């Protein structure tokens, strides 16, 4: 097994969890209601917890004595391999919910496959994550329905969210960073196999929410190659501020 490709592969999964966790964390204390505030923060903490498991494993694999914190806080922008979807900003609650649902649906399908990985650690992390993410998807899906099939205004806003985030969904299935060798060995998940189910599930829920499924056929890619949107630098400077300003600080 090629250590380097496994290390890269773990980051293509975990960076999504870290960055989405950070995005949701921005809402802590700023949610639209006490209840949704706590719900968002809970999801954030679940994701950060999963990130830790993945990064701890990645640090082990790399074998250079780094910690999960080094991986989380001390990389440059282009070294983060998360997809563009999860770094999109919290413009309003509809975006938070839409982004979450589009991610959760993918991530749950993904973890369901990853639990069968021939790599025992990845399989174990996936199994633990499935329960958490099942709830995330239930929560975000319910909210998409509420807002889509809610008032006239919430319907319009939710449709705008779906249209706005749609260009980013196909990158979820982009195989950048996933070596063929890892798939052949049964370690990595073949993402192309998830695409059809994903669009079927998402379309069904959008219809239930009385929202239109965008017909757009061209998509934006880049995050998985380390080419991020203009929002990413700001997110990263928030995320890394303490470690960059006070190196090696702990509390």
């Amino acid at each position, binding site marked *: 097994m090629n250590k380097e490709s496994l290390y890269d592969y773990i980051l293509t999964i975990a960076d999504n969890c870290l960055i989405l966790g950070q995005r949701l964390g921005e809402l802590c204390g700023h949610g639209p209601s006490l209840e949704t505030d706590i719900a968002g923060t809970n999801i954030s903490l679940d994701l950060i917890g999963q990130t830790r498991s993945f990064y701890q494993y990645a640090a082990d694999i790399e074998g250079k004595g780094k910690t999960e914190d080094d991986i989380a806080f001390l990389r440059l922008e282009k070294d983060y391999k998360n997809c563009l979807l999860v770094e999109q900003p919290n413009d309003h609650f509809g975006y938070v919910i839409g982004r979450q649902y589009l991610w959760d649906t993918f991530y749950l399908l993904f973890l369901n496959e990853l639990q069968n990985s021939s790599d025992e650690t990845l399989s174990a992390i996936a199994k633990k994550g499935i329960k958490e993410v099942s709830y995330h998807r*239930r929560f975000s899906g*319910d909210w998409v329905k509420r807002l889509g099939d809610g008032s006239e205004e919430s319907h319009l806003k939710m449709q705008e969210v779906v249209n706005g985030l749609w260009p980013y969904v196909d990158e979820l299935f982009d195989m950048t960073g996933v070596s063929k060798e890892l798939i052949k060995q049964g370690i990595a998940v073949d993402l192309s196999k998830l695409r059809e189910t994903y669009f079927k599930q998402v379309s069904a829920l959008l219809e239930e929410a009385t929202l239109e499924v965008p017909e757009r056929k061209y998509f934006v890619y880049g995050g998985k190659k380390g080419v991020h949107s203009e929002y990413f630098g700001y997110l990263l400077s928030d995320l890394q501020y303490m470690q960059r300003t006070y190196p090696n600080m702990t509390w």
Partner: protein
Amino acid sequence: MKKNWPLWEVFVRSKNGLEHRHFGSLRAADAEMALENARDVYTRRMEGISIWVVESKDITASNPENNGELFEPAQDKVYRHPTFYELPDELKHM
């Protein structure tokens, strides 16, 4: 337009064999949302294995003004507690 969602009362069973106990209240648009909110607000530290929610307006409560007639008459009726039996020493957990 009403500004707030309706208020719900949350009851949580902390483990099998115990009863649901009142944990607090929260706001939610309907029962389904109330359950999800209750899960997030009240059970994120492993407090429960089952949740009931009921809209606060559906609860009929006694009026504190009537506390005198409702509850004070019981105060001098200690004999209603089974505390006057003499128990044998072998009984440890009564």
